């Protein structure tokens, strides 16, 4: 079991954002329309990064690709919420996702195909390297601890948390800025349109979790947040049969993560796929939403999220098997 402390995550979203998907559900306890497996018009959700201008000078944004802008905005929103925390040598940075800046790689290929190998763009190439976004964030926030970029498909969220936990347990850092970032790219759009199992629309976005060691609460530190600002996050290290029904259940498939209403009958739920679009890191948005519920609805002191593995078949399996995230108020 991985145990971490977290607080309010920051999200860069597409479409109408998280709120429409969440509003009313908890209060009414009613399920929304079952649209989950119905095909939608293919106007996919691109995330808006214009707020980045609130944090970064235009001349510094000029050479950033869209992936790095998504990531940098998510990081800046978290840094704004926790001033003077996510900086310096005792802060680690993790950027995780399934595809990385693939659209930028394709833009680099455009420069080769359109103009020849000799005129390949060095600026685009530099941004197409997988850890470019982490480099931009480290530079902007002056994070000089360890930085890690990882690609672990649908399991990126858990892989990122496992590394954050290991860094914290080994005292390499005091806190970790942990970001999940995904962007729409041409190959995904094509694949999505030609995949018979793909439902809804593609989406993109970034979600950043502030992470501390579990013993943070008992340490006296001038930079400590108030105890009630923290949430304790417990994560199962590997899929297991879940003995208790969590409040949110999602399952993944080739093109994203979907809510699985059948697995939690009678419980309130949200369908972020309809609001944000499908993406491999949608489970990170579900987790962020579940964490936010514990702030937005004071009556909730504990909630959970299950992430079902691809091999699971929630329609046919009676047992609920997957990774389990438990969020509690310390």
């Amino acid at each position, binding site marked *: 079991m991985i145990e971490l402390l977290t607080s309010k995550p920051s999200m860069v979203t597409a479409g109408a954002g998280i709120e429409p998907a969440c509003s009313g559900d908890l209060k009414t306890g009613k399920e929304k329309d079952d649209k989950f497996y119905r095909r939608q018009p293919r106007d996919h959700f691109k995330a808006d990064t214009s707020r980045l201008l609130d944090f970064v000078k235009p001349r510094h944004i000029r050479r950033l690709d869209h992936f790095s802008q998504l990531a940098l905005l998510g990081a800046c929103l978290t840094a704004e919420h926790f001033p003077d925390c996510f900086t310096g040598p005792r802060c680690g940075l993790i950027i995780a996702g399934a595809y990385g800046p693939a659209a930028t790689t394709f833009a680099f290929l455009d420069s080769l195909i359109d103009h020849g190998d000799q005129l390949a763009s060095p600026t685009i190439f530099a941004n197409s390297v997988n*850890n470019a976004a982490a480099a931009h964030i480290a530079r902007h926030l002056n994070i000089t601890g360890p930085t890690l970029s990882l690609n672990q498909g649908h399991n990126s969220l858990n892989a990122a948390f496992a590394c954050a936990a290991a860094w914290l347990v080994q005292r*390499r850092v005091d806190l970790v800025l942990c970001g999940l970032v995904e962007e729409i790219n041409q190959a995904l759009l094509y694949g999505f349109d030609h995949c018979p199992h793909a439902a809804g629309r593609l989406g993109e976005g970034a979600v950043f979790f502030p992470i501390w060691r579990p013993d943070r609460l008992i340490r006296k530190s001038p930079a400590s947040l108030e105890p009630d600002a923290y949430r304790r996050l417990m994560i199962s290290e*590997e899929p297991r049969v879940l003995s208790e029904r969590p409040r949110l259940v999602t399952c993944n498939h080739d093109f994203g993560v979907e809510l699985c209403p059948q697995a939690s009958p009678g419980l309130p739920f949200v369908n972020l796929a309809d609001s944000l679009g499908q993406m491999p890191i949608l489970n990170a948005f579900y987790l962020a939403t579940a964490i936010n519920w514990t702030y937005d609805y004071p009556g909730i002191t504990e909630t959970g999220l299950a992430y079902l593995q691809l091999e699971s078949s929630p329609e046919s399996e009676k047992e609920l098997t997957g990774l389990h995230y438990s969020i509690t108020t310390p």
Partner: protein
Amino acid sequence: MPGKILIRGCGAICAAGPDLKQIITTLFAEPRTPAPSPRLRLELKADHPVFAVNHHILDSGDSDSGLPLTHILARIAAVEALSDAGYDQPGQLKGKKVGVCFGTTVGATLNNEKFYRQLKAGTQPALTPLKTHLKINPADWLAREFSLTGPRLTVTNACTSSADAIAIAADWIKSGLCDLALAGGSDELSRITSTGFASLLITDPNPCRPFDRQRAGLNLGEGAAFVVLEKGEPGNRGSRAVLAGTASCADAWHLTAPHPEGRGLKRALDLVLEGYELSDLAFVHCHGTGTSNNDLTEGLVLREKLPGLPFFSTKRHTGHTLGAAGALAAVITISLLNNHRIPASAGFSQSDPAIAVAPTTRAQSIDAPLALSQSLGFGGNNTVLLFQKSEVGR
């Protein structure tokens, strides 16, 4: 929990040889000359010679399977590492939680040029390359190949990827996330990285000359290297070395250039060497790519932090293998430490007054128990691994 992180086994493949033993032999011989690769079909004005793996040594069955070369190379190095650790029989790892930490750049990139050219041309390409990419995440794939059930991670930290993979795997074991780990990295030559590095004007049209006054850039290479890490007591039969320390620090400075004073590298060295004396160290295996910026930064930091300590680069033998470079440097460092002998820094002949220190110019014996392996990466990553001879307790 008691015990140290032991390196139980090592494996590698690159242009310098099909296994670690041959690679070490090559380091003490006249370096090979890199050559343009017909496989890359580059249309550039200048030559961009590379260090390609001899494809005759690859299993022809694999090369026909559609499996990327990055994965094939990884399997070769991983088999050697597991065998070296004594895990060469089926079922030996059953019941153990074995993590896989895989560093790469090309191996995790959705960059199939043929697919994209067809897509861009408006034709309807088959989805196979996309599906293949989804199914063969490097760490997941390697774990499946050896039926390993532990945490899996594909690290994409550019040139420090596989050094970081080793450091993370060690932290997993120390934190109780797994019993042992297979960690390292692999990368193949590709048109994208070749044209990309050429566009950055940091490739040498001649054989690279790390730390030399006339150095003009790097030569790309390809290869893979893996280690098997396990907790235990130093001196245990079969352990190759102790992973005595790891540190990774960001420059937070520039996307493509290291901090001019080596801010992150200095801090990483301070962290990893805390509690040790300079006299404990035998040598530094440098990143030493042959680019102006990298070698200047590394040289200046070594002059200040580790004066008089022998250092060298092996890129003139292996090429810069990107995501595999850190692990390749690690297994070479371990072997040299155990062989008590280090090579001349191939490609070097003239000192650079700006650096004011010179790498090894001849093979020499070493005696001290510790050695450093340095990796600097795109984006300002600096990762240092400290290895200790396994028979020497701290």
